[in-house]
């Protein structure tokens, strides 16, 4: 329907303006542009955007939850492929999501530019002329004026103009062709200004997000107490840069984790073992412009990142790193140092993997559990009942065989591929798994040597990130908030005052919703006739 009627309009333009078929095309282009920048299109695109955002909360997203995507592929391989082909795992960067918001913003630009010009013109113009019939206005009040007042209507109009000016209306007093003098007044230009600021600020948000994202980076690094991390690409366990990022952008600094503290609740019955606070005590060494360095001690907490020049350091996780030394049968050290164990539950039962490729004997690997406060379940299995190391225990299962380190493929340090290995301690191997408390040394089976549990350290997972656009996003977002608040709360209204038919006539018209329209008409009328009783009457609407 719409198409056919507008086609006829397009051909109309073509036939009236010129014979050239190019105008037909132009007509079409104009029509499309008009459609795109219409309010209805903006509305529909907004609703489409809302709908298009939904699947991203249903299916795991590569950006926020890459493991979730992998799991999804493992569980539903065929369905996952179909979903992936329509970018359901990358909703917010997908072609269809982008198409909607790009159209929306084009529409926004097309809408805001002409309105800005119109508004700029309005700001310079006088209020519109007084309509001939004020009774038709949404708010209208006529008071019987005394004959003197009517005779001296000029005086009345002058005081009306004064009153409205005092109330910060823009006022024009005009003499009509019939010799009648009327006041037209308008206020609330800030409503439209706020609206334009709001829409333009949204564009600002979009650009700041896009450009800032390009120059941003974030990297992850696990640091054990006493270790130092250097801010360069090699210093990170994982790193994701934005499109415009260059390694030189990393500011040179290093950071040592001096101590990591966790505080758990021991007091409140309902809350035992709940973490109350995580604190990473760090010393950062920042390079100054003149080649000297400055050392700075600080504490990083969960909601309190450390702000260094060009990078913010966040605390994202923590766990235990038991210090372990393994000697081979000759007494030579085959493995030594703190090893990060991944917490498995809220009481920090932690799983670690140790690979010993280069001892005197065969290659072997260890799957190990650390229990900060050990206890035995009725099944005989061990568990941890409190997250602090009150009664720590380390247990180990040992596997002999090919560790698979020579294949050249990168191996996850937290995984032991036991497919080509044989268990020689723990489980069903017939040999009891090893168990030790701090300071204890035990013998490994099959003459592999000894293990010593030297002590316990903690590690902190740090996230280093920087987004130079962030502050601009915030700036434009706050600007938008201010704009929209003005636009929704400042009433924009026109008021007219005239003396006609021996009456004092006051009328008002609002643009948009204006709860006070009737009331202000009554007030102005009362003020001018000196009848205060009217203005004190409460209006409910």
């Amino acid at each position, binding site marked *: 329907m719409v198409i056919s009627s507008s086609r006829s309009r397009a051909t109309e333009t073509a036939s009236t303006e010129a014979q050239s078929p190019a105008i037909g095309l132009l007509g079409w282009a104009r029509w499309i542009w008009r459609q795109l920048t219409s*309010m*209805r299109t*903006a*509305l529909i695109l*907004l*609703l489409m*955007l*809302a709908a298009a*955002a*939904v699947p*991203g*909360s*249903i299916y*795991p*997203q590569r*950006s*926020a*939850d890459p493991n*979730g995507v992998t799991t999804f592929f493992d569980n539903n391989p065929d369905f996952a492929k179909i979903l992936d082909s329509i970018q359901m795992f990358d*909703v*917010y960067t997908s072609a269809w999501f982008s198409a909607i918001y790009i159209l929306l913003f084009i529409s926004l630009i097309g809408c805001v530019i002409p309105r800005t010009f119109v508004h700029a013109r309005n700001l310079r113009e006088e209020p519109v002329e007084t309509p001939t019939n004020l009774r038709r206005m949404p708010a209208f009040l006529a008071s019987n004026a005394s004959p003197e007042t009517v005779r001296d209507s000029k005086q009345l109009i002058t005081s009306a103009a004064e009153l409205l000016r005092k109330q910060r209306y823009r006022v024009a007093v005009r003499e009509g062709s019939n010799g009648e003098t009327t006041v037209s007044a308008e206020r609330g230009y800030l409503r439209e200004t706020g609206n334009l600021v709001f829409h333009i600020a949204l564009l600002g948000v979009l650009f700041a*997000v896009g450009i800032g994202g390009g120059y941003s980076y*974030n990297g992850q690094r696990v640091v054990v107490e006493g270790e130092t991390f250097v801010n360069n690409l090699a210093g990170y366990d994982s790193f994701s840069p934005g499109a415009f990022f260059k390694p030189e952008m990393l500011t040179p600094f290093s950071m040592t984790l001096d101590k990591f503290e966790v*505080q758990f*609740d021991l*007091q*409140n*019955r*309902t*809350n035992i073992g*709940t*973490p*109350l*606070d995580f604190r990473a005590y760090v010393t950062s060494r920042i390079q100054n412009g003149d080649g000297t360095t400055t050392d700075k001690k600080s504490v990083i*907490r*969960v*909601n*309190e*990142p450390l702000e260094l020049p060009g990078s*913010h350091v*966040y605390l994202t996780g923590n766990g235990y790193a038991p210090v372990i030394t393994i000697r081979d049968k000759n007494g030579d050290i085959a493995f030594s140092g703190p090893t990060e164990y991944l917490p498995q539950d809220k009481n920090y039962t932690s799983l670690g993997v140790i690979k010993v490729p280069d001892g005197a004997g065969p290659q072997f690997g260890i799957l190990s559990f650390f229990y900060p406060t050990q206890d035995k379940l009725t099944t005989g299995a061990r568990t941890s009942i409190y997250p602090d190391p009150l009664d720590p225990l380390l247990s180990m299962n040992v596997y002999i065989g090919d560790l698979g380190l020579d294949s050249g493929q990168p191996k996850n340090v937290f995984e032991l591929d036991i497919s080509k290995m044989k268990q020689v301690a723990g489980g069903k191997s017939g040999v009891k798994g090893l168990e030790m408390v701090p300071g204890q040394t035990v013998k490994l089976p099959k003459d592999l040597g000894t293990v010593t549990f030297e002590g316990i350290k903690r590690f902190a997972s740090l*996230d280093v*990130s920087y*987004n130079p656009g*962030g502050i601009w*996003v*915030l700036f434009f*977002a*706050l600007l*938008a*908030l201010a704009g*929209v*608040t003005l636009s*929704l*709360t400042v009433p924009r209204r026109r008021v007219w005052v005239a003396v006609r038919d021996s009456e004092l006539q006051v009328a008002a018209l609002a643009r*948009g*919703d204006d*709860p006070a329209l009737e009331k202000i008409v009554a007030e102005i009328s009362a003020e001018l006739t000196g009848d205060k009783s009217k203005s004190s009457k409460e209006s*409910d*609407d």
Partner: protein
Amino acid sequence: MTNMQLNEGLSQISLLVVYGAMAIYTFSFLAFATNLSRLASNKDETRATASGAEKFGTVMLILAGILHGVAVALRGISANRVPWANMYEFTLTGSFIVVAIYLIAMRLKDVRLIATFISGVTLLALGLATSIWYVQVKTLMPALQSYWLVIHVLVAVLATAFFNIAAAFSVVYLLRSANWLTKAKASIFGFARRVIDLFPTSDKLEKLAYRFNIIGFILWSFTLIAGAIWAERAWHRYWGWDTKEVWTFIIWTIYAGYLHANATRGWTGKRSAWLSLVGFVAILFNFTIVNLFFKGLHVYSGLK
């Protein structure tokens, strides 16, 4: 925030006070419902007795509201922090705010007819909160220990309260302009029609919904920004399309659509009222289903 002392006894008292408030909300709800049904009656004598029921309902509502406020305060004192850190507490505090806003707005005559709705919804919310979302008072996990919890969540709850009241007006608006209801013959519909006719005109209902929705929208925009600032502190990026962020965005966008609808020819009236409802359903969905069943960083329901 490392010395967090909980007062379990006080939280038990708070819960008892909630039960007390619920009992009185029940009286208030019944009184308002009686008021409506009497007003809708065919008989003049019955109609004359309606205002007595309304007065009683209002007194009960104020009393229940005071108790409700006491329960919120006690919960906060017992936890030694703001009482909105898990679903039970959001609901407890949020429903109190709805009642408080209603009691303030009651000075406007047109608002009074949704009293039945307000007391009913509050009763329902407290019922859900105390039965299936109840958790004992706990300390805050470190990620929540931030003054942004005070600001961001409080403003979100406030916004929700305004959207909630607006949604009530939109529902009545839609019923009022529902053709099937006007045409339906069964006597029960006749009664429903008389109840609906008690409400302000469609035009007024639409405006009331709009006014509550714009306040809700401004507050929600602030919630969104404050959430992003907090996320930059706690999760090292201001926006990451976490499920809860996604839904905050969706809700914001729906209400932006609603505001546009109010300025678009052909979209005012019924369509915009539907959008107001869709927005509120999204809020409820965000609060219940997303909190409880979706995966994400915001796992703060306090339930397992």
